Every structure is written in structure tokens, then in C-alpha cells.
């Protein structure tokens, strides 16, 4: 950063070296904190503010706060009531995803690699923290193992471009795979969705919301841009109605109305929540996708028609691949908000991360620890949400959009 040059100072005619950026501490302070009288004042105010806030927070955190509540309840924060002896199935899922991520990073490089680096380092950091918690040894080092898995997969497959279709197929399968392992199959004891909880439930709700709402959203977006008036009206009405109404309303509706409208099916609470989240998310997804569709010039449609492609092929081969690529950042953004919004299922009584936090607070053993518990939950949400927005920025860079 350069200081301002005063009017009247002349640049000498002889060529000289540009001033180097390394400035003394004092100059830096003067340029960035005390360059005008009001900046000096602001700096002083900010320092006083920081002092008061930090002093308050630190003295509370190190003297008054009782952090024991966190390690004592760590497991239910992470997986809720998922049975202790079945937790290895959660690890299988995490390892599968780490494997897929490692494979993708090795095979595609670029964007996938950056993603893997961000997720790997966040996972590694959390893994190191987790290793100090007084929990079962397998769980203590599980995350670090997952990161190691990711790295090994990356180096094993690096450059084997021919395997791309297999990895893509793997991603498609990973979703049902996750569900099957968590729920149980064949001889495995069934773990009903009612005992899924904590961070696990939060992540599953967000993932289901995005994955399932994606095809719905694409269809709605195509419908809204259709030249067939009836289809256009119905799609538009759906999108605008859902976007005009709060998510809480939709979650309650799913809870109360689904049993009324579909009395013959026994759909449990979590599935109803997933349904509500998906229907909600689809409307926003549709608007994101529509943004992408609008960015495709008409020449692309015309060229596709001219080489003989019909409507479905035009969309599938020419328009959607371009449109979806340009809306990836928007979809990541939507995933981040959905990740935060899943916390609303607490209101309908599900035990996601926030729901668990509420139950821990209500537990008579840990009375009066609201601040500690909520802060912990806030930090977990923050770490996920912030690292995802960081990834989203990287994606935007990589796509150049």
C-alpha cells in the first residue's frame, strides 16, 4: 500500500527504483489507521470497543463458562440418537465420500482438486481437534483417517482420465449408498430416521434438499420459460407462491397436511421435513437455473435446431450444460443458505444440531449453560458455512463467472 503523494512534490526525471512495499511498522500505522483526524478517532474508538468486548468474552470463557458440557455431549451433537454401536456406518459414509472426493480431485484436478484441498484441510483441522476429545479411539482418529484416505485415493488415480465415467457414476450412486448404510439393509439392524440427529441430520437434510430439488428446479425453470402458456403459468405460480412464504410455514404444512392429503402412507416426521425442504428449495433452485437459461443466447437454440436437434436434445446437449455451469456458484450459495435453514426443523421438534443444543440446555444436568451450548453450535455452523462460501468463491474464480 502506498502513501499519498502530496501535491507539489515532483517526480524526478531520472529513472529511480519504485519505492518498495516493505515499510516500517510506524509508517504502516500512519497510513492505515491515523491518516486523518477522524480515522484516528475511529481507530481509538475501535480499540476501546475491541478491548471491552474481548475482555468480557475472554474473562467469561476462561473463568465463568463451563465447557464440560461439550465433550460430555459430543456424540449426540454429532449424530443425535444414532446407536453407539452402529456409528461405524457413519464412518463408512464419510470414508466413501472422502474416497470419491479424492478420486475426483485426482482425475479432474482443477476445481475438484481445490475443493478437496479445502475440505481436506478443514477435515484435517477438525480431526486434530477431535483427537484430543475423550471419546472412543476409533472415533478420535476417524476424521484424520478419512483425510488420509482422500489423499491416498488422489495419488492412486491421478491422471487416469479414462475412469471419469466411473467416478461420475460413483457420485450418482453415493447418495443412495449413503442412505442405505445409514438406514441399514440385509442383516444390518435398521436405524430408523427418527433416531438420526445432530450434525448428521443437519447435513443430510441440506444434502437431500439440494440433490432432490435439483431436477425439480430444472423442470420448473424450463416450465417457466416454456412457450406453452399453461405450463408456464403453473410453474410461475408455484415458484412465486413458495418464494413468497416463509420456510417455517412450509415445514409446518408438510407436518400437518401430508397426513391429511396422503392418509394411506405412513410418512415419518423426518421424511415430511425432507419433503417440505425439497419443495421449498425447488422454487429457489428454479430461479437460479432460470438465471442460467436466460444467459444462453438465442443463437445457441437456433444453431441446435439448424443441425436437427429437437427440443429435448437441444436442452440436454446444448442449453443445460452451458446454463448449469454458469449457475454452479448460485447453487452453492443456495446450499449454504439451505444448510443454515435446516435449523428451522428444530421448530417442528426434530433433533438436528440446533434441536440437540436445545435438548442439552433443557437437560437438568447441564442447567444454565445456554451460552456455552449455543456458542458451540454457532461455531460448528460457522465453520461449515464459512468454508462452503470460501469454496464457492474458489469455484467462481475457476469458472471465471
Amino acid at each position, binding site marked *: 500500500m502506498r502513501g499519498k503523494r502530496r501535491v507539489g512534490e515532483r517526480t524526478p526525471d531520472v529513472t529511480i527504483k519504485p519505492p518498495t512495499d516493505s515499510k516500517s511498522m510506524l509508517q504502516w500505522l500512519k497510513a492505515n489507521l491515523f491518516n486523518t483526524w477522524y480515522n484516528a478517532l475511529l481507530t481509538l474508538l475501535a480499540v476501546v470497543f475491541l478491548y471491552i468486548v474481548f475482555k468480557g468474552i475472554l474473562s467469561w470463557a476462561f473463568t465463568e463458562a463451563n465447557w464440560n458440557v461439550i465433550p460430555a455431549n459430543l456424540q449426540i451433537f454429532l449424530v443425535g440418537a444414532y446407536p453407539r454401536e452402529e456409528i461405524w456406518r457413519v464412518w463408512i459414509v464419510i470414508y466413501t465420500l472422502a474416497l470419491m472426493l479424492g478420486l475426483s480431485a485426482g482425475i479432474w484436478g482443477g476445481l475438484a482438486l481445490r475443493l478437496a484441498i479445502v475440505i481436506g484441510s478443514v477435515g484435517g483441522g477438525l480431526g486434530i481437534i477431535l483427537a484430543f476429545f475423550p471419546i472412543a479411539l476409533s472415533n478420535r482418529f476417524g476424521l484424520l483417517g478419512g483425510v488420509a484416505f482422500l489423499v491416498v485415493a488422489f495419488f492412486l488415480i491421478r491422471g487416469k482420465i479414462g475412469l471419469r465415467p466411473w467416478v461420475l457414476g460413483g457420485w450418482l450412486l453415493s447418495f443412495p449408498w449413503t442412505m442405505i448404510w445409514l438406514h441399514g439393509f440385509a442383516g444390518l439392524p435398521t436405524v430408523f430416521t427418527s433416531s438420526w440427529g445432530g450434525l448428521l441430520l443437519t447435513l443430510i437434510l441440506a444434502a437431500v434438499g439440494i440433490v432432490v430439488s435439483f431436477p425439480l428446479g430444472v423442470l420448473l425453470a424450463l416450465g417457466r420459460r416454456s412457450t406453452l402458456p399453461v405450463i408456464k403459468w403453473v410453474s410461475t405460480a408455484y415458484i412465486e407462491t413458495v418464494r413468497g412464504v416463509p420456510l*417455517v410455514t412450509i415445514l409446518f404444512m408438510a407436518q400437518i397436511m401430508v397426513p391429511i392429503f396422503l392418509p394411506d402412507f405412513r410418512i415419518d416426521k423426518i421424511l415430511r421435513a425432507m419433503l417440505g425442504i425439497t419443495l421449498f428449495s425447488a422454487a429457489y433452485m428454479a430461479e437460479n437455473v432460470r438465471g442460467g437459461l436466460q444467459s444462453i443466447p438465442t443463437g445457441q437454440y437456433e444453431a441446435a435446431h439448424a443441425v436437427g436437434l429437437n427440443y429435448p436434445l437441444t436442452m440436454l446437449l446444448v442449453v443445460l450444460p452451458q446454463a448449469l455451469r454458469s449457475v454452479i456458484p448460485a447453487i452453492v450459495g443456495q446450499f449454504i443458505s439451505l444448510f443454515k435453514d435446516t435449523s428451522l426443523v428444530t421448530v417442528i421438534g426434530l433433533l438436528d444440531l440446533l434441536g440437540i443444543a436445545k435438548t442439552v440446555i433443557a437437560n437438568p444436568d447441564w442447567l444454565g449453560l445456554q451460552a456455552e451450548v449455543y456458542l458451540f453450535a*454457532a461455531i460448528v*455452523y460457522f465453520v461449515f458455512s464459512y468454508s462452503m462460501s470460501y469454496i464457492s468463491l474458489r469455484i467462481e474464480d475457476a469458472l471465471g463467472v
Partner: protein
Amino acid sequence: MENNSTKSVSEKIPFWRDVRGLRVLFQVIFLVGVVLLSGILYTNMLRGLRGLGLTLNLDFLNNEAGFGIAEGIAYEPSDTYLRAFWVGVVNTIRVSVIGIACATILGLVIGIARLSSNWLVRNLAAIYIECFRNIPLLLQILFWYTAVILQLPSVRKSLTFFGHVFINQRGVYLPSPQPTSGVKIWVACLAVGFILALILYLARLRELRQMEQPGFPAKWALPTFLVVALVGWFLTPGRPFTLELPALKGFNFAGGIYLSPEFCALVIGLVMYTGAFIAEVVRSGIQSVAKGQQEAAKAIGLNEFQTLRLIVLPQALRVIAPPLTSQYLNLTKNSSLAVAIGFPDLFNIGNTMMNQTGQSIPIFGMIMISYLIISLATSAYMNWYNRRINRIGR
């Protein structure tokens, strides 16, 4: 023009290959699908309702509600359900309007701070934005409610500010202005001041037009009005308003303005959260104003503040308006999180009504329509505003 040939040809096309026929066919199939689906759901619903012993109508709205509502416009448990719902609507609007006003101010301040030339201020603003954006709003509201407000001292040990503002776990108590008998005199003064100011304003406006100079047309009008208002205030015998001060009576405070803990937690949560998003909107709006504009402003000798007020903000406003609208709508919709802490907004009251009457379908309809109307009204207003700022000084 003989066009029979085309006609005779198109009649021969089998319908499944006829472009127009197919267009109609697709729409009919789609519509039939939608109708069929709704039909199935509808008959299911009737069956379900019969099982519950309910019929679908709105008569219940005229029945006595029978439940109490902690705050809002005048209401008794003996009032009707319709009245109860209306109390909720007004509460939602109240929270939203106050929330939007505060969040806009907060967002503007933080957004500008984010671009400050002061390193410390800039980074503090960034930390604020990242923290409050990345933590779920519901968690924030619950935190303010259970971990902060409900942990405040009891009524007897209230925190006191300026001698007459009391904050405790039951809420916030502020002095409220009460009109005295002298208020009419002051209102008359205000009217005179307003007329004077209007005349001065118009005169100044004309003068500016004639001189073809830019300027602030209320330069004389505003001070005149303020002076008249102030003089009127002190001339009125006994002052136009007195402050009603909250005072401890028995176990609680009475008098003044009372803000409930639920209201405070909800508004604080909404403002802090939405403020962070608005700050980002403001920042990117300001950054979208071409660098050349700021340089040009500096070149003609405007200082930092003048540049912001005269050059940057008016242009940024146009970029900011649409995303700002969606933040306002988000805040309004998010006010439904009131249900988590028991503030009686429209959704919460609707929910209570559903539990009491079992009439979930019409009540959901009412809730959705209320939100849609609020959303539509907000976006209509913002569209109008947007057109206006786009028209001025393009």
C-alpha cells in the same frame, strides 16, 4: 390470396406430428395431470377431514378465540378468531417495519465501514459480516432470547440507563411521550412553520432553477422549520408533551413504553442477521460505481464525505435497490421464527388457532395469503421506488 392449398395440406397431418396440435396436446395432458393430482389430494383430504369429524368452512373465524395474546393491538380472549389473527398480522408488520428500518441503518453503516480507509474499522466490519451471515438466524434469535435477555437481572435489580430506561429479564421499559393540553398550540405552531418552510423551499427551488445551479433546495426551509418548532415548543405553556416514566409498582414496572423479551430478541436477531446481508449489498453496490467516478469527484475537489453523498451513493442506490428488496422480503418472512420464542406474530397465532380448532387447511390458506400480500406490497413499493430513482438523473 388463395390459401386453400396450405390448409388442405395441414389437414392431412396426423395429430401426433402436428406442431400446433402437439402444443395443445401437451398442455392438455399437463393440465389433466395437475387436475388429477389435485383431485386425488382433494378427495384424500375430504376423507381425512371426515375421519377427524371436521368440515371445511370459515365459520369458526367468528367464534370466540378464548386464548390470550401477550402483546399487540387491543384484544381480549373473548374476541373472535378473526380478531386474534389480525393481532398477529399487525404484530408481524410491526416487527418487520421496525426490523427493516434498523437493519437498513446497521447495514449501511457496516457496509460503508467495510470500505473504510481505516484498516481496523474495515476488518472489524468484515468480521461482523462473516460472523452474523454464517450462523443460522434461528440460533441467533434463541441465543439472544435464552442466553442473553432471559439471563438479565430480575426486576428488582434492573439495569438502569439515563435514570429512566430499565432493562431486565421481563423486557425493556422506556419513557413514552404523552401529549398535554398544550399540544394543540404546538401543532398550530408546526403548521405555521411548515407553511413558512414550504414557501421558502419553493422560492429557493425557483432561484436554483433560474441560476441553473445544483444545490440543496431545503437549505433555508429546513432550519426555519426547526427554529419555529423549537420556539413553539418552549412557548407552549406546560410544554406540548410530558414524558411518562416507567416506575416500579409492586412486582413490575408500569407506565412508559414496554418491549417484551420476545419482541426484543426477535428484532435484535433479525436486525443483526439481515444487517450483515444488507452490508454486503451496500458494499457491492458502492464498489459497482466505477472507480473513474470517484477519481473524477476527487479531481473536482470533493472530499471523501461529499464524494460519498453526492457521487457514489446516488449511483449505488440504483444497483442496491433490487437486492435490498429481497433482503427486506427475507426479513419479513424470517419474522415467522417468532414461533420459536413465543412472540405472537401471524404465524404463531395461526398455529395456536390450528391447535384449537383443527381447521389447519383454511388457516394455512390465510397465513400464506397474508405473507403473499405483504411480499407483493413490499415488492410493488420497491419496484415503484426503483423506477423513480432510475428516472431521476439517469
